[in-house]
């Protein structure tokens, strides 16, 4: 995944062209529809969820799925369907903010390393190699363990642990762009390095960043759910899918639906993001295809 050839998005073709090509990929389209739906749920959770996510009713604990409670109720009589809808907000938030952190830091480090080369490059990339030699969920666990549990700490932990991958990809793109004429032209007219990186180089390596981010949101959500599952992530009563799943495990023998539905929500989300990311990769950046 190191050096990629630059991909130029022609502005005249632009978004319409991407859309036209993406439309032909049914799986990617399916992914896109699910992602749009999830965003819709996340935004309108307060209105469309039939119950509040923390509304307890001990008289109705452990009710199987019914017309009143589509996905049943949990040990406190909370409506699982409503909690899953509210949970989409948490998961998307964690996924996007964690990836945002990784893209910003990884982008900064990667473009500086690729653009300046030499000793700075060496220093930055060796540091990234060190981080990469710790499997990312373990790094997230270590960071989360020292920051303590919580939503924001989890975002930071997941974000930092995926930074090196972005630094690598962006460095690769920058390296291949650095020698091109338009960069030299910009230098010749006296543009500053910062301006060249921000205005000329970054826009030209957007394609791999977009692809990697889409797939990255998926793996960030998965990592975050894993952290919550082992108790390092979000604390109750926040309706996080991984935490709900973990809570339902105790009752698996009698009330399996408590773990089935949150897990299904995670899987569909990840599957949709992966299909979309794969489709985007084929459209934006055929060279990245693995």
């Amino acid at each position, binding site marked *: 995944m190191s050096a990629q050839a630059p991909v130029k998005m022609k502005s005249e073709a632009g978004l319409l062209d991407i859309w036209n090509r993406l439309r032909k990929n049914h799986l990617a389209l399916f992914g896109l529809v699910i992602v749009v739906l999830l965003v819709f749920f996340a935004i309108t959770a307060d209105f469309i969820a039939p119950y509040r996510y923390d509304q307890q009713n001990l008289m109705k604990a452990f009710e199987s799925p019914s017309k009143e409670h589509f996905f049943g109720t949990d040990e406190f009589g909370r409506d699982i369907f409503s909690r899953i809808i509210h949970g989409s907000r948490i998961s998307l938030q964690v996924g996007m903010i964690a990836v945002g952190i990784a893209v910003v830091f990884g982008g900064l480090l990667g473009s500086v390393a690729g653009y300046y080369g030499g000793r700075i490059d060496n220093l930055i990339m060796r540091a990234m190699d*060190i981080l990469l*030699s710790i499997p990312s969920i373990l790094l997230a666990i270590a960071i989360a363990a020292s920051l303590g549990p919580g939503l924001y700490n989890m975002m930071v932990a997941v974000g930092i642990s995926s930074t090196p991958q972005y630094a690598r990809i962006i460095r690769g793109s920058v390296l291949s762009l650095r020698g091109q004429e338009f960069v030299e032209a910009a230098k010749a007219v006296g543009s500053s390095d910062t301006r060249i990186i921000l205005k000329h180089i970054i826009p030209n390596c957007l394609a791999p960043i977009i692809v990697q981010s889409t797939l990255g949101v998926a793996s960030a959500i998965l990592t975050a759910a894993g952290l919550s599952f*082992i108790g390092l992530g979000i604390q109750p009563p926040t309706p996080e899918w991984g935490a709900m799943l973990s809570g339902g495990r105790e009752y698996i023998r009698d009330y399996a639906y408590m773990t089935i539905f949150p897990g299904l929500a995670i*899987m569909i989300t990840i599957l949709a993001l*992966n299909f979309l990311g794969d489709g985007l990769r084929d459209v934006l950046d055929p060279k990245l295809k*693995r």
Partner: protein
Amino acid sequence: MIKYIFKRILSLIPVMLGVAFIVFTLLYLTPGDPARIVLGDQATEEALHEFREKEGLNDPFLVQFGNYVWKAVTRGDIGRSYMTRRSVANEIMSAFPSTLKLALSCVIAAIILGVPIGILSAIRQNSLFDNVTRFLAMVGLSMPVFWQGVLLILLFSVKLRWFPSSGFDTWATLVLPTLTLACNPLAVITRMTRSSMLEVVRQDYIRTARAKGQSERIVIWRHALGNALIPIVTVIGLQFGTLLAGAVLTESIFSIPGVGRLMVDAIKMRDYPVVQGGVLFIAITFSFVNLMVDLLYAWVDPRIRAQYK
């Protein structure tokens, strides 16, 4: 070749130091006073002070780090558990065989299934088999390990009662954890084999092999697979690291006494030396596996071997 191996082993040293530094810094920054955690709330000020002096907790950060590395290198000592007061290195070493057994059985299962499926998928590109395989591989990649584990327990031990849901002594206990954890590497290996084979089967030498009347089996298994192996081997090596890490969740679901569960239990008890020791240990193992993979390249690919002669 020997020079190359030596050079690669030397290059691991700075990486290991870096990992140790990160791990140590995280431990250092963790809120909470180790003396209090070990001695409890009832401890007197003097006892706490004495403990800090004895454990070197009052030393400056870099001195503490230096001592940590020194002890780790000279005595293999990476601290003591806050809870059991046993040496972290011993705890990890007694847990590691279980983790290794699980990871190996997953890697083997994933290779045995993944490589043939990937090859079939590639030689029948766009067939029904290929499409179903690709879809299932994507599902496999999207399955949360912990959910899958819980579902398998529900189906095979609660409902069907075929396999036990916990323990790690007989072969039967290995089945469900392997099914759980092998799914992801299986998907990755299948996808990689497929795409790597697709690239190779279009090459001229494959056409040559066919043209001279070589049987299809030899063309695929020797000529094509031989040349498609490098990315597959790479991805298997990377998967091994992911497996060691993935074991953290799987082991705690199936109550397997491995490094992963040791760490999860330690997280719950805020026993940070064990957590950090576990991370350090897995990172080192991961780096060694990747080194092995690099050396394996030279073995599978004569073109690479020639460079080091």
